[in-house]
Protein backbone atom coordinates (compact mmCIF):
# COMPACT_ATOMS: atom_id res chain seq x y z
CA UNK A 1 0.00 0.00 0.00
CA UNK A 2 1.16 3.50 -0.79
CA UNK A 3 1.97 6.11 1.85
CA UNK A 4 0.75 8.95 -0.36
CA UNK A 5 -2.43 8.38 -2.26
CA UNK A 6 -5.44 9.96 -3.96
CA UNK A 7 -8.51 7.76 -3.85
CA UNK A 8 -12.19 7.80 -4.76
CA UNK A 9 -12.91 5.28 -1.98
CA UNK A 10 -13.92 6.18 1.61
CA UNK A 11 -10.95 6.83 3.89
CA UNK A 12 -10.28 4.57 6.86
CA UNK A 13 -7.80 5.75 9.47
CA UNK A 14 -7.00 2.17 10.49
CA UNK A 15 -5.55 1.55 7.03
CA UNK A 16 -3.17 4.49 7.44
CA UNK A 17 -2.18 3.69 11.02
CA UNK A 18 -1.39 0.18 9.79
CA UNK A 19 0.81 1.60 7.04
CA UNK A 20 2.96 3.67 9.41
CA UNK A 21 3.18 1.09 12.21
CA UNK A 22 6.76 0.59 13.36
CA UNK A 23 8.12 -1.56 16.20
CA UNK A 24 10.24 1.36 17.44
CA UNK A 25 7.25 3.71 17.59
CA UNK A 26 5.72 4.65 20.91
CA UNK A 27 2.94 6.69 19.33
CA UNK A 28 0.83 7.00 16.22
CA UNK A 29 -1.01 10.30 15.77
CA UNK A 30 -3.74 10.51 13.17
CA UNK A 31 -5.96 13.20 11.67
CA UNK A 32 -9.20 12.86 9.74
CA UNK A 33 -10.60 15.96 8.06
CA UNK A 34 -14.35 15.57 7.53
CA UNK A 35 -16.80 17.51 5.39
CA UNK A 36 -18.97 20.08 7.14
CA UNK A 37 -22.63 20.78 6.35
CA UNK A 38 -22.24 24.55 6.20
CA UNK A 39 -19.72 27.18 5.14
CA UNK A 40 -20.06 30.93 5.61
CA UNK A 41 -23.70 30.58 6.57
CA UNK A 42 -24.80 28.49 3.59
CA UNK A 43 -26.04 24.91 3.74
CA UNK A 44 -23.74 22.49 1.94
CA UNK A 45 -25.28 19.32 0.48
CA UNK A 46 -22.06 17.55 -0.49
CA UNK A 47 -18.51 18.32 -1.58
CA UNK A 48 -16.57 17.38 -4.64
CA UNK A 49 -12.77 17.25 -4.91
CA UNK A 50 -10.53 17.19 -7.94
CA UNK A 51 -6.75 17.23 -8.19
CA UNK A 52 -3.88 17.79 -10.55
CA UNK A 53 -3.07 14.23 -9.65
CA UNK A 54 0.60 13.71 -10.59
CA UNK A 55 1.66 17.02 -9.04
CA UNK A 56 -0.54 16.53 -5.97
CA UNK A 57 1.14 13.18 -5.28
CA UNK A 58 4.59 14.75 -5.68
CA UNK A 59 3.67 17.56 -3.27
CA UNK A 60 2.24 15.10 -0.74
CA UNK A 61 5.47 13.08 -0.87
CA UNK A 62 7.44 16.32 -0.48
CA UNK A 63 5.47 17.16 2.67
CA UNK A 64 6.29 13.69 3.93
CA UNK A 65 10.01 14.27 3.35
CA UNK A 66 9.85 17.69 5.04
CA UNK A 67 8.08 16.17 8.04
CA UNK A 68 10.82 13.52 8.27
CA UNK A 69 13.48 16.27 8.24
CA UNK A 70 11.78 18.48 10.83
CA UNK A 71 10.47 15.98 13.36
CA UNK A 72 11.72 12.78 14.95
CA UNK A 73 9.21 10.54 13.26
CA UNK A 74 9.32 7.01 11.89
CA UNK A 75 6.79 7.15 9.12
CA UNK A 76 3.99 9.27 7.67
CA UNK A 77 1.04 8.50 5.40
CA UNK A 78 -1.22 11.05 3.69
CA UNK A 79 -4.31 10.09 1.69
CA UNK A 80 -6.81 12.47 0.14
CA UNK A 81 -10.22 11.60 -1.21
CA UNK A 82 -11.39 12.71 -4.68
CA UNK A 83 -14.82 12.92 -6.29
CA UNK A 84 -18.06 13.35 -4.38
CA UNK A 85 -17.72 13.27 -0.58
CA UNK A 86 -20.92 13.23 1.45
CA UNK A 87 -21.28 15.35 4.60
CA UNK A 88 -19.53 13.87 7.62
CA UNK A 89 -17.20 11.68 5.59
CA UNK A 90 -13.41 11.92 5.63
CA UNK A 91 -11.76 13.96 2.88
CA UNK A 92 -8.17 13.81 4.20
CA UNK A 93 -6.46 11.25 6.41
CA UNK A 94 -2.97 11.51 7.90
CA UNK A 95 -1.12 9.11 10.21
CA UNK A 96 2.33 9.60 11.74
CA UNK A 97 4.34 7.15 13.82
CA UNK A 98 7.12 8.35 16.13
CA UNK A 99 9.16 7.26 19.10
CA UNK A 100 7.29 9.78 21.24
CA UNK A 101 3.91 11.44 20.97
CA UNK A 102 5.06 15.09 20.73
CA UNK A 103 6.79 14.56 17.39
CA UNK A 104 3.83 12.58 16.05
CA UNK A 105 1.32 15.32 16.98
CA UNK A 106 3.48 18.11 15.58
CA UNK A 107 4.23 16.32 12.33
CA UNK A 108 0.54 15.57 11.86
CA UNK A 109 -0.39 19.24 12.26
CA UNK A 110 2.50 20.33 10.03
CA UNK A 111 1.33 17.96 7.30
CA UNK A 112 -2.29 19.14 7.22
CA UNK A 113 -1.25 22.81 7.33
CA UNK A 114 1.17 22.37 4.42
CA UNK A 115 -1.29 20.30 2.43
CA UNK A 116 -3.88 23.05 2.66
CA UNK A 117 -1.35 25.56 1.30
CA UNK A 118 0.45 23.79 -1.47
CA UNK A 119 -1.09 20.57 -2.75
CA UNK A 120 -3.09 21.15 -5.95
CA UNK A 121 -6.42 19.73 -4.83
CA UNK A 122 -9.63 21.70 -5.36
CA UNK A 123 -12.93 21.66 -3.50
CA UNK A 124 -16.36 22.43 -4.89
CA UNK A 125 -19.29 22.98 -2.56
CA UNK A 126 -22.73 21.90 -3.76
CA UNK A 127 -25.50 23.84 -2.00
CA UNK A 128 -29.10 22.94 -1.20
CA UNK A 129 -30.37 25.16 -4.05
CA UNK A 130 -28.17 23.26 -6.57
CA UNK A 131 -25.73 26.16 -6.91
CA UNK A 132 -22.01 25.37 -6.64
CA UNK A 133 -18.84 27.19 -5.70
CA UNK A 134 -15.13 26.39 -5.83
CA UNK A 135 -13.71 27.15 -2.40
CA UNK A 136 -10.06 27.96 -1.78
CA UNK A 137 -8.63 27.35 1.67
CA UNK A 138 -8.76 30.47 3.80
CA UNK A 139 -4.97 30.57 4.20
CA UNK A 140 -4.62 30.99 0.43
CA UNK A 141 -6.91 33.95 -0.06
CA UNK A 142 -5.22 37.16 -1.09
CA UNK A 143 -5.59 40.35 0.91
Amino acid sequence: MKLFRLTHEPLELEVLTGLVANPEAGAIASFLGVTRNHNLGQGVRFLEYEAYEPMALKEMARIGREAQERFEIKNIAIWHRLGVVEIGQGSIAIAVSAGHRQAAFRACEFAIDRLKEQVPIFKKEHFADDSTRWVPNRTNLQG
Partner: protein
Amino acid sequence: MKVRLFAFAGLRELLGQENLVLDLPVSAKVEDAIEFLTHGYEGVRALAPSLRAAINQEYAERDQLLFENCELALFPPVGGG
Protein backbone atom coordinates in the same frame (compact mmCIF):
# COMPACT_ATOMS: atom_id res chain seq x y z
CA MET B 1 6.06 26.67 -29.76
CA LYS B 2 3.53 24.25 -28.38
CA VAL B 3 2.68 24.29 -24.69
CA ARG B 4 0.43 21.63 -23.13
CA LEU B 5 -2.01 23.40 -20.81
CA PHE B 6 -3.75 21.64 -17.92
CA ALA B 7 -6.52 23.62 -16.22
CA PHE B 8 -8.32 22.82 -12.98
CA ALA B 9 -11.35 23.80 -10.93
CA GLY B 10 -12.99 27.10 -11.96
CA LEU B 11 -10.50 27.68 -14.77
CA ARG B 12 -11.20 24.24 -16.27
CA GLU B 13 -14.91 25.07 -16.29
CA LEU B 14 -14.34 28.45 -17.97
CA LEU B 15 -12.21 26.83 -20.69
CA GLY B 16 -14.71 24.00 -21.10
CA GLN B 17 -11.91 21.42 -21.03
CA GLU B 18 -9.03 20.22 -18.90
CA ASN B 19 -6.38 20.00 -21.63
CA LEU B 20 -5.49 22.45 -24.36
CA VAL B 21 -2.47 22.89 -26.60
CA LEU B 22 -1.42 26.54 -26.79
CA ASP B 23 0.64 27.87 -29.67
CA LEU B 24 2.82 30.60 -28.16
CA PRO B 25 5.85 32.54 -29.39
CA VAL B 26 9.28 31.28 -28.35
CA SER B 27 10.34 32.94 -25.06
CA ALA B 28 6.73 33.25 -23.89
CA LYS B 29 6.34 33.32 -20.11
CA VAL B 30 3.67 32.03 -17.76
CA GLU B 31 2.05 35.47 -17.76
CA ASP B 32 1.83 35.42 -21.57
CA ALA B 33 -0.09 32.14 -21.51
CA ILE B 34 -2.53 33.61 -18.97
CA GLU B 35 -2.91 36.75 -21.07
CA PHE B 36 -3.59 34.60 -24.13
CA LEU B 37 -6.42 32.81 -22.29
CA THR B 38 -8.01 36.06 -21.08
CA HIS B 39 -8.56 37.04 -24.73
CA GLY B 40 -10.01 33.76 -25.87
CA TYR B 41 -12.25 32.81 -22.96
CA GLU B 42 -14.87 34.83 -21.16
CA GLY B 43 -14.43 35.10 -17.40
CA VAL B 44 -10.73 34.22 -17.31
CA ARG B 45 -9.69 37.84 -16.73
CA ALA B 46 -11.53 37.96 -13.41
CA LEU B 47 -9.83 34.76 -12.28
CA ALA B 48 -6.37 35.62 -13.66
CA PRO B 49 -4.90 37.51 -10.64
CA SER B 50 -5.50 34.54 -8.31
CA LEU B 51 -4.17 31.81 -10.63
CA ARG B 52 -1.17 29.73 -9.62
CA ALA B 53 1.06 28.10 -12.21
CA ALA B 54 3.21 25.00 -12.42
CA ILE B 55 5.63 23.98 -15.16
CA ASN B 56 6.23 20.25 -15.45
CA GLN B 57 4.54 19.79 -12.07
CA GLU B 58 6.68 22.29 -10.13
CA TYR B 59 5.31 25.65 -8.96
CA ALA B 60 6.36 28.48 -11.26
CA GLU B 61 6.33 32.28 -11.06
CA ARG B 62 4.59 34.55 -13.58
CA ASP B 63 7.87 35.61 -15.20
CA GLN B 64 9.15 32.06 -15.69
CA LEU B 65 9.88 31.03 -19.28
CA LEU B 66 7.86 28.33 -20.97
CA PHE B 67 9.50 25.94 -23.38
CA GLU B 68 8.58 23.65 -26.25
CA ASN B 69 6.19 20.88 -25.22
CA CYS B 70 6.27 21.81 -21.53
CA GLU B 71 3.33 20.98 -19.29
CA LEU B 72 1.83 24.20 -17.97
CA ALA B 73 -0.80 23.84 -15.25
CA LEU B 74 -2.97 26.78 -14.18
CA PHE B 75 -5.35 26.67 -11.26
CA PRO B 76 -7.04 28.85 -8.62
CA PRO B 77 -5.89 28.77 -4.96
CA VAL B 78 -5.96 25.21 -3.68
CA GLY B 79 -8.77 23.89 -1.48
CA GLY B 80 -7.71 20.44 -0.34
CA GLY B 81 -7.95 19.19 3.19
